[in-house]
Structures are given as structure tokens and as C-alpha cells.
């Protein structure tokens, strides 16, 4: 290009710097994870794993709600499918026999056990299949109607689970799920999902999804087929949600239909909204903030002594404070922490140099 551009003059050099910085960040993360493995404090270990699971769940939801602009509230249903698949396929046969007291487990499943990683994929595929089935009628709807339809689907799944006694053990739920969700599994999968999302959203498919979010008619008139792309995003989102659900099952050890109420969808939605609809880095950072924040604020549930005000512990107090914090974020960052932007190295560098420049000017005067 002959004309002046706003772009940095040497993009090639920039990308090298970014690559090196990314590698440094990755090695720091790996180092921290190694250290975490040796940590004796079970609580820290649990929260760390939950952070990674929440990253997976948030990115799954962000793909459909943030990048494609389809407001789906079916997340909990897809998570339940993944969680039950993983649980049923990893619990050892002897334990299953003990658990299914009222009605025995259906035939091939009662003795079948598969490797953990495989069960996550199977769960994901089943969820994607379910997404296809409900996507055919639902994805023709828009806005609120779609949200209500997917919400209904999620509840249907839950009720089915409650009543399919010989498959899911009904209201008793499933216990003794092998705790396969180690630091490496949870962070490994979170890493894969992050890399996938980064590549996918910058591909021509990802651009098409964003175009649909921005203006359906314009996207369609450029030859983007709306239904096919929405369906693809919906199925991919369901797949990752189910993988996250499977991890959650292995993390918890026990699951029941109660876990997959609508509130579960809202928990993930909170992370997505806080981080920014359409921002991968936003979701990752918000997953840490929300997960750690909810644990850290647990102090508030205990007895509080503020001199004049004295309480002997109110259960749920932390959620009150947490909601207030969320409100503040929504008021001051209407589009979440990042909006649709990403925290790239060049963006951070730009901010830092602007800050440094500001300081220099300040001292000169």
C-alpha cells in the first residue's frame, strides 16, 4: 500500500514479539500448574480446577451468545448431557450395580467403562446431536423467543433425567464418579478450547458468524447462509458445553439433576457478560475473577463484626455482595470488561506506552 496506514509499521516484528511473550506466559502458567500439583491445600486445588472448567464452559457459551449473537439459554441442558455421559461411562461396574437399587441400569451401560477422554468426546457428540435436533425448529426464531425455547429445552433435559430411572438413576443421582478431572485434564482442555476459539473466530467461518451477529440481512446478501452457520455455532457450543459438563461431573464426584437447573446457565452467562460478549480473553479472565471471587467472598457468610453492626453469619450474604459487584461492572463497563476486544500483546503494549508517555509528560511539566 502506498498510502499511510494506522497499522504499526513492522507487523512482522510485532508478531515475533507477541509469539515470544505468549511462550513466556505459557511457561509461567505451566510452572504455576506444576507448583499447584504439589499444593497440599485441597481447597486451593479445587478452586484452581474449577477456574479451568469455567473457562471451557464460558467459551462454549460465548461462541453462540457472544460471537454469533444468538441468545441461547440451553447451556445447562448440554452440560447435563455431557456430565451424565461421562459419569455413566466411567463409574466402575460394581459401583453402578450398588447405585441402581430401584431399577437396574440398562444393558450395555451396566458393565461398560471407557477411558475418561473418550467419554468427554462421546458426551460432546451426543450434545451436538441434541443441539441439531432442537436447532432445526429453534434457530428460526429470533431474540427473546429463541432464549425462551432453549431455556425450555434445558428444563426438558433435566426432567427427562429425573424420570429416566433406568438410565440416570432418577432423583438419586450418580455417585462415585472417578475423579479424573486433574489439573492437567482441566487446564489441558481449557487450553485446547482457547486455541480452537482463537483460530476459529479469526477464520472465515468465525468472520461469517460475527457478520451474522452484526447484520443478518447484509451477511445473507453476501452469500453467508444464515441457518447453516447458526447451526454450526450452536452445535460446536453444545459440544464444548458437554465437555465442560463432563469435567464438572468428574470434578464433583457426584451429580444429580438438581445441578443442572437454569441457575447453572446463568452462572456461566455471568462470566460471559462480565468478560465481554465476543471476547475470548475476556471470558478467560472473568472465569478466574468469578470463580475465585465467589470463594473468596465466602468470608462474608460468616459472623461479621463491624463495631456497631454485628451479625452472627448470614448464609448467602456473599451472593448479595457479589451481585452488587456485578452491577457495578455492568454500570461502568456496559459491554463487559473487554467488550468484543481481545487483550492482545500489542493492545497491552499500546496501553502501557500510553501510560508511560502520560507519566513522562507529567514529570516534565
Amino acid at each position, binding site marked *: *500500500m502506498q498510502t499511510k496506514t494506522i*497499522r504499526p509499521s513492522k507487523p512482522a516484528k510485532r508478531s515475533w514479539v507477541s509469539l515470544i511473550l505468549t511462550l513466556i506466559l505459557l511457561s509461567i502458567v505451566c510452572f504455576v500448574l506444576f507448583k499447584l500439583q504439589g499444593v497440599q491445600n485441597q481447597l486451593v486445588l479445587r478452586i484452581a480446577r474449577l477456574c479451568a472448567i469455567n473457562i471451557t464452559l464460558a467459551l462454549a457459551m460465548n461462541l453462540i451468545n457472544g460471537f454469533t449473537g444468538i441468545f441461547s439459554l440451553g447451556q445447562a441442558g448440554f452440560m447435563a448431557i455431557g456430565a451424565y455421559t461421562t459419569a455413566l461411562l466411567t463409574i466402575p461396574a460394581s459401583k453402578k450395580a450398588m447405585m441402581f437399587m430401584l431399577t437396574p441400569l440398562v444393558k450395555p451401560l451396566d458393565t461398560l467403562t471407557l477411558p475418561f477422554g473418550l467419554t468427554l468426546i462421546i458426551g460432546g457428540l451426543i450434545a451436538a446431536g441434541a443441539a441439531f435436533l432442537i436447532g432445526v425448529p429453534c434457530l428460526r426464531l429470533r431474540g427473546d423467543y429463541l432464549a425462551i425455547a432453549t431455556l425450555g429445552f434445558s428444563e426438558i433435559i433435566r426432567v427427562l433425567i429425573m424420570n429416566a430411572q433406568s438410565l440416570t438413576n432418577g432423583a438419586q443421582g450418580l455417585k462415585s464418579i472417578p475423579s479424573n478431572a486433574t489439573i492437567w485434564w482441566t487446564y489441558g482442555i481449557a487450553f485446547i478450547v482457547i486455541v480452537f476459539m482463537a483460530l476459529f473466530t479469526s477464520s472465515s467461518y468465525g468472520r461469517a458468524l460475527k457478520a451474522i*451477529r452484526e*447484520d443478518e440481512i*447484509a451477511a*445473507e446478501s*453476501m452469500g*453467508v447462509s444464515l441457518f447453516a452457520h447458526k447451526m454450526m455455532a450452536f452445535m460446536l457450543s453444545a459440544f464444548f458445553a458437554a465437555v465442560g459438563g463432563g469435567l464438572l461431573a468428574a470434578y464433583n464426584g457426584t451429580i444429580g439433576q438438581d445441578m443442572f437447573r437454569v441457575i447453572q446457565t446463568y452462572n456461566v452467562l455471568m462470566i460471559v457478560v462480565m468478560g465481554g460478549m465476543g471476547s475470548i480473553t475476556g471470558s478467560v479472565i472473568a472465569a478466574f475473577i468469578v470463580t475465585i471471587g465467589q470463594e473468596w467472598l465466602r468470608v462474608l457468610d460468616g459472623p461479621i463484626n463491624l463495631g456497631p453492626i454485628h451479625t452472627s453469619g448470614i448464609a448467602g450474604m456473599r451472593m448479595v455482595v457479589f451481585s452488587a459487584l456485578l452491577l457495578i461492572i455492568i454500570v461502568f463497563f456496559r459491554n463487559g470488561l473487554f467488550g468484543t476486544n481481545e487483550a492482545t500483546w500489542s493492545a497491552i503494549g499500546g496501553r502501557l506506552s500510553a501510560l508511560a508517555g502520560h507519566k513522562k509528560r507529567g514529570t516534565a511539566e
Partner: protein
Amino acid sequence: MKLEIRDLRVSYGGIQALKGVSFTVNEGSIVTLIGANGAGKSTTLRAVSGLQKADGGSITLDGQSIMGLPTKEIVRRGIVMVPEGRRVFPDMTVRENLLIGAFIRSDRAEVEKDLRHVFELFPRLSERTWQMAGTLSGGEQQMLAVGRALMAKPKLLMMDEPSLGLAPLIVRGIFDIIKRVNADGITVLLIEQNANAALRVAGYGYVLETGSIVLEGSGAALMADPRVQEAYLGKHKEKPQNAHDDYTAVAATAGRLTD
């Protein structure tokens, strides 16, 4: 590349928007459809690009019917629309907007070449490749909308009211671009309310009124036609004495045109 539309009929619910429209767009020409609000101009374009289902009639491209094909397939065959009101993707960069235009193409090297070509055509855009399209001015957004359509490598470019909501100076720039695009060998079907500007660039024009073609002719002939002058160009043979005369004159013309 010859687009032929015969007896095209479209209705929304029970209301007939197009009552048998026929016209031809010859290769390499600039053809314009002019008409007032609600005449059915946009509906015609939407039907040609496959966004709106037609009730009857035929749309053929080089003798082959393209009616009922999905938009994607019609774009592949080289008919691309610049939608009314620009409709750029506001939260995507200028570059991303242009790349969406090339969505149906898979020849990467060629796409990069065309990207450079669009930037040559619109230097303003090349200065703003990483800017969000929503932050561009109206004229720049119109340039982007045209550039985006050009990225699909169209043979026929259909433009829906490109002058809508733009300052007169910018409108002149847009019409210059239409001429340049046409000079590159792209056929243009132009829809306009701004009949003056449209007839000036168009080789041939059709006048659409409430769903039917009422007049046709070369751009110059239509401009000289007293009926077009009165109804669309705001000219009168004799200056009316007062507002009442003005009103009756327009009403008379409208009556004559719909007959």
C-alpha cells in the same frame, strides 16, 4: 451476462408489491430503476438476489433460470447486491468487512489482489483498514459497502439507493465510482429515488410505479420526457402560480403515469 426479468410478481402477505415487472439488463451497461417510495424497487432487487421469494414470472441469467436459488448460489453466479442503507458490519474492522464480501471465494491469493484493488479504488478505506466500520462516516460506509460487494467479484452489481442520506458532494463521488466500476466491465443495476443523478449515469432506465413499469427509455430520453421531469425531477413546463396549482399538476401527472 444478460439479466432478463419477465412478468415478476411478488407479494407480502396479501399485498402485491410487484404486479408483473419485466426488464432487461444487458452486459456492460448501467441500468437504473427509478420510482417513488413503495414502488417496488427494493422488492425487485430482493427477488433477484434470492432474499425474497417470488410468486411468479421468471428471472434468467444468460438464458438460465436463477429463480428460487439460494442467495449463496446467486452470489456465486456473479449477482451481488449493495443493500439499502449501506448495512456495513459496525463492530468489525474495515478489512474484516471486505473479507466477508469474499466469503464465497476460496482463492486466497486472488482475494488479496482484489483487496488491494479495492484499496486503490477507495484510498480512504486503506487508511482505515483496522478501524471499526461503525466509526466511519456515511460516505466512507457507502464506499465500504461497495468495496465489500466488489470483493465477491460480481459480474452484475445491484445497488439499492446508494445516495440515501448522503451529502450532495458525496453523492457525486459515489456516482463517479459507479461509472468507474462499470468501466472495469461490471454491469450495474442501480435503484434510485434521486432520479436526476441516476439517469445521468445510466444508459437505460425504467420507471417503476406501484409495482409495474410505466415508462422506459435511454437515460437521456427519460430525462427529457416531460412526465418524468414533472414527477421525478421537480421541473414544470410552466411555473405554477401557487401551491394549489402545484398540487394539481403533480396529481395530474401521477394519474397519467398510473393509467
